[in-house]
């Protein structure tokens, strides 16, 4: 047996094979289509069925959208034009409502001649977030980021320029105490002073100082009341403020929940659970109605500010839980190594723990932000004119009574662009960090 076998097993190759192309039906689009669409009779059937569904949907949607009327001044004119062009029973979109009312959907009732201010503010906002979002932007741009909140406030609400400048001065005072007094009076005392002195300054000095400066050099923009703001201007102000403020607050709450200090720990847990356990709409009603009972009579506390505070607290609770997940995912060894090197708590958090925990939490954080941004539409229930609220008020005019889809499609598209960009940015950041760390 083994003798005969040895002859068939022994083998020496005499010619080497050249590389050949794979068979045509095994590469590229052909392969993909065969494997994914037509790999068996069931899949062929499903493919054909899906094609029919897609066709059925698009054959109604595309003519409706593409043949839409852009040049009409009211809904009945729009319908008349449609009947004239495409026959009596043609169903076409009336985009004319957007052509006429888009400034309102975007700016609300902001004075027309002042539209340049929110537009400039938006550009400034983009310039301010660029260095935060993209590390390729020069670091010096961070100065723009630091000053932007004050400039944005001034541009949108108007008033004397000395108000924001006097407010900035409070931060300068705090910074000066930390830098120049800390070596002399000790770190702890300096921190306490750096908090108390600016707060006292803002409470008692800031207002009169701004008033005095304004009477010397009157430099101001026309004031615009909060009630006049609406549409995407309002949604963006609330959304962006909420996002910017809730991230640091959420991180602090997450750290608090992990803390060994009893009171801080229990406070964080209670805060997170209470805020998270009640619907946002309830908190918004609290902001609009209940706070008036608690605040001293006569205090006029801007409704938008109250909403921003509530939205911030609400999403901070969610962010805290997302970040806690990131913190929990880190091996204990990272904490120990940071401790063993002599880093104190804040340094080890800032330099070692949070950069890693936040990286893990990016998808969850962005998810929360997207949710927050869309939830800004809920403010319609407490009488603020967000885009949805404005769509009702546009319908309330006799010209456009009965226009639903066109407005909602536009609003939906705008929200989608915002949210989709946030999602894409999150993916970009994840990829970038993964590349850097491996």
């Amino acid at each position, binding site marked *: 047996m083994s003798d005969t076998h040895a002859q068939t097993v022994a083998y020496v190759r005499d010619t080497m094979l050249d590389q050949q192309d794979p068979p045509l039906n095994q590469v590229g689009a052909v392969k993909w289509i065969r494997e994914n669409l037509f790999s068996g009779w069931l899949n062929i059937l499903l493919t054909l069925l899906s094609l029919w569904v897609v066709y059925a949907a698009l054959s109604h949607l595309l003519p409706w959208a593409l043949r839409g009327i852009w040049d009409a001044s009211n809904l009945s004119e729009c319908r008349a034009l449609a009947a004239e062009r495409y026959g009596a029973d043609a169903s076409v979109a009336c985009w004319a409502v957007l052509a006429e009312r888009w400034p309102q959907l975007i700016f609300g009732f902001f004075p027309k001649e002042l539209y340049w201010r929110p537009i400039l503010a938006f550009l400034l906002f983009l310039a301010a977030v660029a260095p935060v979002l993209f590390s390729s932007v020069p670091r010096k741009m961070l100065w723009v980021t630091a000053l932007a909140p004050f400039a944005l406030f001034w541009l949108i609400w108007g008033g004397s320029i000395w108000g924001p400048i006097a407010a900035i001065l409070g931060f300068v005072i705090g910074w000066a105490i930390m830098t120049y007094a800390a070596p002399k009076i000790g770190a702890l005392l300096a921190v306490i002073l750096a908090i108390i002195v600016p707060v006292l300054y803002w409470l008692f000095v800031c207002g009169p100082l701004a008033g005095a400066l304004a009477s010397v050099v009157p430099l101001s923009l026309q004031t615009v009341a909060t009630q006049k703001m609406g549409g995407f201007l309002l949604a963006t102000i609330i959304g962006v403020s909420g996002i910017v403020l809730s991230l640091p607050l959420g991180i602090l709450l997450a750290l608090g929940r992990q803390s060994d200090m009893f009171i801080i720990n229990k406070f964080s847990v209670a805060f997170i659970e209470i805020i998270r356990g009640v619907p946002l709409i309830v908190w918004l009603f609290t902001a609009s109605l209940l706070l008036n009972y608690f605040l001293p009579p006569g205090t006029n506390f801007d409704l938008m500010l109250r909403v921003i505070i509530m939205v911030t607290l609400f999403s901070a609770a969610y962010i805290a839980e997302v970040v806690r997940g990131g913190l929990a995912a880190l091996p204990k060894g990272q904490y120990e190594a940071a401790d063993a090197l002599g880093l104190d708590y804040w*340094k080890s958090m800032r330099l070692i723990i949070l950069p890693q925990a936040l990286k893990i939490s990016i998808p969850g954080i962005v998810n929360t932000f997207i949710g927050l941004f869309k939830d800004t539409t809920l403010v319609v229930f407490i009488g603020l004119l967000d885009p949805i609220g404005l769509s009702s008020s546009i319908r309330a005019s006799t010209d456009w009574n009965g226009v639903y889809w066109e407005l909602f499609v536009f609003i939906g598209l705008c929200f989608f662009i915002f949210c989709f960009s946030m999602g894409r940015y999150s993916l970009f950041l994840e990829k970038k960090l993964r590349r850097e760390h491996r």
Partner: protein
Amino acid sequence: MSELATREVDRSQMKVSDEVAIQITKMNKWYGTFHVLRDIDLTVYRGERIVIAGPSGSGKSTMIRCINRLEEHQAGSIVVDGIELSSDLKNIDKIRSEVGMCFQHFNLFPHLTILENCTLAPIWVRKIPKKQAEETAMHFLEKVKIPEQANKYPGQLSGGQQQRVAIARSLCMKPRIMLFDEPTSALDPEMIKEVLDTMVELAEEGMTMLCVTHEMGFARQVANRVIFMDAGQIVEQNEPEEFFNNPQHERTKLFLSQILGH
């Protein structure tokens, strides 16, 4: 049991002085109601190289982790470099910056490069200028023989290289005492040697070292004292020759016969 460097260990710089580096007196520790460390008394003189051995769960890791307060002791006292460990955070941070530590799983910071791993603590704790910290870091990376990896991330290095970086990272703080918590236990056999070589060199320069390890070859060649622990107590301690050739306690004999038997 891995073989060490075949070369002779140079003992010329290994001098034990009379100065006390660590003084542990009647130290006790409990996890809940479980008594992990019982009446530990230990005096470490500057320049000593102490190997701590014992079965798992004997409390040897816990003991050295108490020295830089990664674990808190509940009774007795620990004095490191003349500073008593209490719950005073200032003292703890001071001791931690004087005592270097290497872990079984290296615990490098994965989001920082090798160089950044080494310069982080000098810059933020010792307040050394960045440039100077980087020079020091490169010096120690050369010493552990991986300067060419300085700009890589920990994830790109082998286990042995990571542990050598971890040693370099500790050295960058110019510690007066080094603690090693099973530094070679998570390594492949061929990488153990490169880490042990680094530790031998460190010992040759006169560093005070406390080392929890199962590398008995290292203990024989480098240690001036071997401590055997069991059930949270120091059962026996002696010079390596005596310890290995003439163990006294029954538990020590059993342990040695088990780990040296094959």
